[in-house]
């Protein structure tokens, strides 16, 4: 099988290139290979779209500094501040 034919039929390689493209850079050759694969493979096109979506969602979620669903309970916080005050008074 020629190298081009290989990528055309290889979804494992294509999904790998999708990931590589999302965080880095593809070589010229890889860009062409991926484009040809995606042209003929709707399953990998879905993968690519969803992979991008996952990245965006994860980034948005983790970067939102005010995330109301994750909170420490008040008792723990009170204890913690108490502990800090103790340390401050030590010196």
């Amino acid at each position, binding site marked *: 099988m020629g190298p081009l034919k290989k990528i055309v039929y290889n*979804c494992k390689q294509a*999904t790998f290139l999708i990931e590589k493209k999302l965080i880095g850079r593809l070589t010229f050759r890889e860009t062409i290979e991926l484009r040809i694969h995606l042209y003929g493979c709707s399953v990998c096109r879905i*993968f690519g779209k969803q*992979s991008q*979506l996952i990245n965006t*969602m994860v980034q948005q979620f*983790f970067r939102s500094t005010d995330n109301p669903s994750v909170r*420490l309970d008040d008792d723990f916080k009170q204890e913690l501040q108490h502990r800090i005050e103790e340390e401050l008074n030590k010196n």
Partner: protein
Amino acid sequence: MLANPAINPHKWVENYADYLYAYALGRLNDEEQARDLVQEVFLAALERADRFEGKSSERTWLTAILKNKIIDIYRKKSSGLTTIGIANAEQEPDFFWEDGHWHEEHWPKEFGVEDNDPLHHKEFNQVLQKCMQKLPPLWLAVFTMKHIDEQPTPAICTELKVSDSNFWVIIHRTKLNLRACLQKTWI
């Protein structure tokens, strides 16, 4: 008493505890560990308070301390998984045939949320979090350091002691598993 006017530890818990906790929890998936870390960060910060010059904000400074502690934990968790950290993921399905074709039962299917602003889709977000929690620790470490903290790949490889080729294998397999988990749980 503390002489450094650039910091105010009396307000630390009120101002930063929840933020640091969320930060740690997202990267470790362990509530107890995340809580302990918040405490450790504050105590460590007190110890070196005199060295804080106020060049960055208090929050940035505290977050940097937390980051280093998280990386220490990643390292401890991943030592022993020198090859690739697949040990925990033996149940991981084989997505592809030997020739690289998808197994038909693993074909990606539309989630059905792609077009109606999933970023504000709360339930979908929760499923995503749950799926992240299923990842092996080393994979989660690589994933968050790359996608959330956007650290350069060579730095991640050095910090976590993974080779460049293993880094790429982990990036690929993490996404395959994460996406499959979303599909399985959501649809």
